[in-house]
């Protein structure tokens, strides 16, 4: 496979939050991602875009090694999270995952109360009751859910609407205090109003977190992305700032896809 031609836009003020070196992901005998090199800037929203099956989700799911549990999956190359290799650089996989939080496409709340859901990933037994309550409030506020649920923190999480559940999933991830947030099409399974609410939440979060988000929605990308990575057939076609990618100087393939025309890669 030809090496992808990369234009890296590195913000001057910060080291990259995530850096890929010669990265390839395989499912059985098929190479689904051949990303070569990639750098994701810190404290920005980076959107991974591309047609279905282009390997966006696989790439995203490789970052916190959630794909490790799938039997046919294998990877080559290296991923550095904040300068540390995500295989060797962390004490164990749970450390990596508490640094790199993830929110999935379909909201999936656990069968317990709203409060317990938020605290699900918090396994620090020494935390006092007051600290816990403060953490719950803080996370729910960050996820813009506090006003809606503050009076019923003990009711089952499954009673929330789908959009609320997705924000609960975000709050739950924030409670673990990650540095990086991976969002796998977080707005795909909620209604447009909830999707807008989620977008606002995500934009507010970027001051505190590096956000990497897979999305199918090109208009959404235009609205919230700082940085865009365009994938097609497992290869990175182009990366750049949002302004660059949506301008005329972008590559023809990128332009075709981002102008929402049919992409024939």
């Amino acid at each position, binding site marked *: 496979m030809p090496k992808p031609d990369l234009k890296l836009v590195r913000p001057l003020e910060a080291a990259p939050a995530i850096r890929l070196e010669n990265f390839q992901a395989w499912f059985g005998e098929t190479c689904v991602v051949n990303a070569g090199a990639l750098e994701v800037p810190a404290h920005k929203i980076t959107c991974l875009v591309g047609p279905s099956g282009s390997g966006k989700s696989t790439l995203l799911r490789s970052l916190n090694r959630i794909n490790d549990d799938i039997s046919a999956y294998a990877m080559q190359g290296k991923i550095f999270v904040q300068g540390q290799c995500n295989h060797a650089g962390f*004490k*164990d996989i*749970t450390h990596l995952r508490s640094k790199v939080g993830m929110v999935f496409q379909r909201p999936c709340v656990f069968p317990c109360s709203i409060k317990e859901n938020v605290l699900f990933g918090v*396994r620090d037994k020494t935390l006092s009751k007051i600290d816990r309550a403060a953490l719950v409030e803080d996370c729910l506020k960050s996820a813009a859910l506090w006003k809606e649920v503050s009076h019923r923190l003990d009711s089952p999480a499954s009673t929330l609407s789908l959009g609320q559940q997705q924000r609960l999933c975000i709050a739950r991830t924030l409670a673990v205090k990650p540095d990086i947030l991976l969002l796998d099409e977080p707005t795909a399974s909620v209604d447009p109003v909830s999707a807008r609410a989620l977008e606002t939440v995500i934009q507010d979060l970027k001051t505190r977190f590096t956000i990497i988000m897979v999305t199918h929605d090109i208009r959404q990308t235009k609205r919230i992305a700082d940085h865009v990575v365009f994938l097609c057939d497992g290869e990175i076609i182009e990366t750049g700032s949002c302004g660059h990618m949506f301008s005329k100087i972008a590559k023809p393939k990128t332009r075709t896809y981002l102008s929402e025309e049919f992409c024939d890669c």
Partner: protein
Amino acid sequence: MSKRAAINIIYAGALRVALLVSLSILAFLIGSIIWQGSKALSFDFIFSDARDFGASGGIRYQILGSLILIAVSALLVLPLALGTAIYRSEYVTSEKLGRRIDLAIFSLNGIPSITYGLFGLIIFVNLFGMGISWSIGSILLAMMILPTVTVSSYQAMRAIPDSYRENSIALGLSRAQMVRRVILPQSLHGVVTGLLIGLARAIGETAPIMFVATAFSGVTWPRSINEPVSTLPTHILALAQQATNPDALRNAWGTSFSLILIVILLSTLAYVARHKLQPGRPQ
């Protein structure tokens, strides 16, 4: 290392140990049956008569007896299970009645096998005065596997899309014709699979038949319905009770191995039936 990481390692270790123990148990069970059984099994063993109370000779009539028992129980259970499944699937309209029928049929699964034997002894042997006869064994085995066959048939019938029913009625078929031409052919795989699974279980049952349908020695094939037969599981029972005699024990293993081979054959057929007879349906 944190406490959580330590627990995780202990946990992973416990899982491995548990699996290892389970695996060695499984290996021991399968291994001993195959090892001991293959030593005793031969062409002669299968096709000759038992002698010396089973300690020598073969198991020809035991195989025959077992096959007669399950063949006749298949003939008995099939119409009953099929009719029940059809009624449950095509004629029951009230959910409540349906649940009551389910309950009654599931309950049969909860009756211990020995109780079937006791029931057969009271009703057929003593009240009906049939004496010890193989036909009682067939009836009891049919009762035991009735839930399996019924439920499997019923589930296959429920899986038929309602559009098939609506279309048949729209074409002017009566309900009975629809059952015959659409429901039965489309649920055949469920009926056959359930029947074979049931028979695989029935042929290994000892407790329901041991005091109502079988005799240990001196039995050939039955000439009337009121005669006992000899079967594989009861033969194993008799031989296991003289386990101090190495010859008897060897033949017990041989008989067990033959019985298991028949059970596996029936289960494999059931598996094949499930996949081969399944009708293709448009999605």
